[in-house]
């Protein structure tokens, strides 16, 4: 093997590792998009803001309340989740029967409101994130792996497995799947759909908050607008994997992260976002149901 090929291969491996960490974050956020869409057919554009709020709650829990790291994560996940449930109750529920476009525009408005309200109340400066875990870098030849990347892989895996268990193996999960299949039929079977919808928002936002904290640790910089672009990217990821499909969101997120890093690594950083959005257009044109989505014809 020539030296160039060797360099190319190690670099490729490094880009894949970087892509996998970024993609895991997208996947965690995309899960919330897809779950909410699966149940109430709403693209919740405010979902990126749950991620931002999660990061800031983690920041305050650590710097002001001085909680230990694990509690910081729990604190932020639970509070963000409660916040999401309140948003759903106050803003989305009254619009449940309204047209989809009204709900969509409301979601956009909510997103902007949260962004700018946060900016006004705590300032727009990017802030350094407190060290929740000791930063270490492991070097294997030419491959660099940081402890934060390992934490990201581990926590994403744990969170996704728990989600899978919850949805597939518990009664609550069964109720969620039933509601997703048909809200009316589920209600006839005695399922309280409002409770299930609240629960979906709760879980989605908790995952987004976890992603927010991981991102804070990974990049050491959080700011009120941080949810905007990752929110959009997670939306692409959800569509890519098949919106409404939980494994689809995971696959879509990780794929998008890897593709972005390959574009930056092997080609040109300028095209990174362009490629991500072209991907969205292509998937909508070629396979609108996404990679793992079911092809269901809508009855008229």
């Amino acid at each position: 093997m020539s030296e160039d090929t060797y360099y190319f291969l190690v670099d490729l491996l490094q880009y894949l590792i970087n892509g996998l960490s970024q993609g895991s974050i997208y996947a965690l956020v995309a899960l919330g998009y897809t779950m909410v869409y699966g149940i109430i057919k709403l693209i919740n554009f405010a979902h990126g803001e749950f991620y931002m709020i999660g990061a800031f709650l983690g920041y305050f829990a650590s710097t002001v309340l001085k909680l230990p790291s694990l509690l910081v994560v729990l604190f932020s996940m639970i509070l963000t989740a409660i916040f999401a449930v309140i948003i759903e109750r106050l803003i989305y529920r009254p619009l449940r029967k309204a047209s989809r476009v009204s709900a969509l525009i409301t979601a956009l408005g909510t997103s902007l409101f949260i962004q700018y309200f946060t900016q006004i109340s705590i300032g727009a400066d990017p802030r350094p994130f407190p060290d929740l875990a000791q930063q270490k870098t492991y070097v294997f030849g030419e491959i660099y792996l940081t402890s934060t990347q390992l934490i990201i892989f581990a926590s994403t895996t744990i969170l996704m497995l728990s989600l899978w268990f919850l949805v597939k193996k518990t009664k609550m999960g069964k109720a969620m799947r039933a509601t997703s299949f048909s809200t009316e039929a589920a209600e006839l079977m005695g399922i309280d759909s409002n409770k299930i919808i609240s629960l979906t928002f709760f879980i989605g936002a908790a995952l987004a908050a976890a992603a927010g904290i991981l991102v804070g640790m990974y990049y050491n910089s959080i700011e009120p607008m941080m949810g905007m672009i990752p929110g959009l990217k997670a939306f692409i990821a959800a569509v890519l994997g098949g919106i409404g499909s939980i494994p689809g969101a995971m696959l879509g997120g990780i794929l998008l992260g890897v593709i972005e890093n390959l574009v930056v690594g092997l080609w040109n950083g300028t095209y990174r976002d362009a490629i991500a959005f072209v991907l969205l257009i292509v998937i909508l044109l070629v396979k609108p149901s996404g990679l793992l989505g079911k092809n269901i014809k809508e009855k008229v």
Partner: protein
Amino acid sequence: MIKIFVCFFLSISIFAEEGTLKIGAVFPMTGPIATFGQESVNGIKLALEKINAKGIKGKKIELIVEDNKGEAIDSANATRKLIEIDNVLAILGSVASSNTLASAPVAQSKKVPLVTPASTNEKVTTMGDYISRVCFTDNFQGKVMAKFARNTLKAERAALLIDNSSDYSKGLAEVFQREFIALGGKIVGGDDLVYQQRDVEFRTLLRKIKRANPQVVFVPGYYSEVGPILNQARQVGIDIPFLGGDGWDSPNLQELAGAGVKNTFISSHFAPDDKDTMVQNFVKLYKERYEEEPGAMAALGYDSIILMADALGRVKDPTNREELKNAINSTKDLLGVTGRISIDENRNAVKSAVVLEYLPGGRHFKEKISP
């Protein structure tokens, strides 16, 4: 009849006496480079206290601050608002060159003098004769850093990492590249080493830089992205010096970069540890008022309003914008905290630059380079 006329004129002059001299300010008070806007306005306000205590021809300056969020569109809108609604005499602003480049055509077409404290991109003052600045330009700043990299650090190979969404970054990179090559250096890595405002993920880019094997990396960006870049660079095993421009010069850089700030150097407008008495007085006053060390933006904001007040004092009728423009453009040897300011025929300030080194305790004066 004569009496009536006299009364009429008297009343006009009394009315004018009572009015204030309205100066607009367009700065990023929020957004990714918010500390730059806040520091600039802090500096302006500090100087205003002194200026207004004396008054200019018996009048006081009234400052109207508008937030442009660090965005070009908001800068143009804020400038239009200040001119059309507040009817300001002149405008100070902004920091990012992309923002000032959006404000300048508006000010020029309405014939309202605009003085930018900190926009260093070459294009800014070419927008027209009503646009001038109190800082040096990137042509000079880029040369300073190229010389520093080549002569002081003895680097032969440099890589560039550019913020593609910023005119400032692209302009400064171009000058650095030209000068570094002229001094016998070589630029390694391609033109694909670019990022955008608000990016946070740089590990893959940094890997490419590492592969290009430079001896220094020049990152002409803003602190909000440079902080994470430095932080991640050290994590992926890049320990060579990183160089930058005045866009780094924020108190937040060190917090965002963490340990990554070690072995970095920037060119800037002023060193807080300069022994000059005027600088030391300014630093002391600023620390008392705002409880932090002033950065370059604070110093430039301070100087911009001193220049404005000086020009207002030299014109016969301060409400005549054309006269005011001429007065601003003919400023000579005005003493500011960032040095002696003279506006040249291209309406740029001819001034010296300082090279600062980041040490754990803060920014430290390394060398001073005159044009």
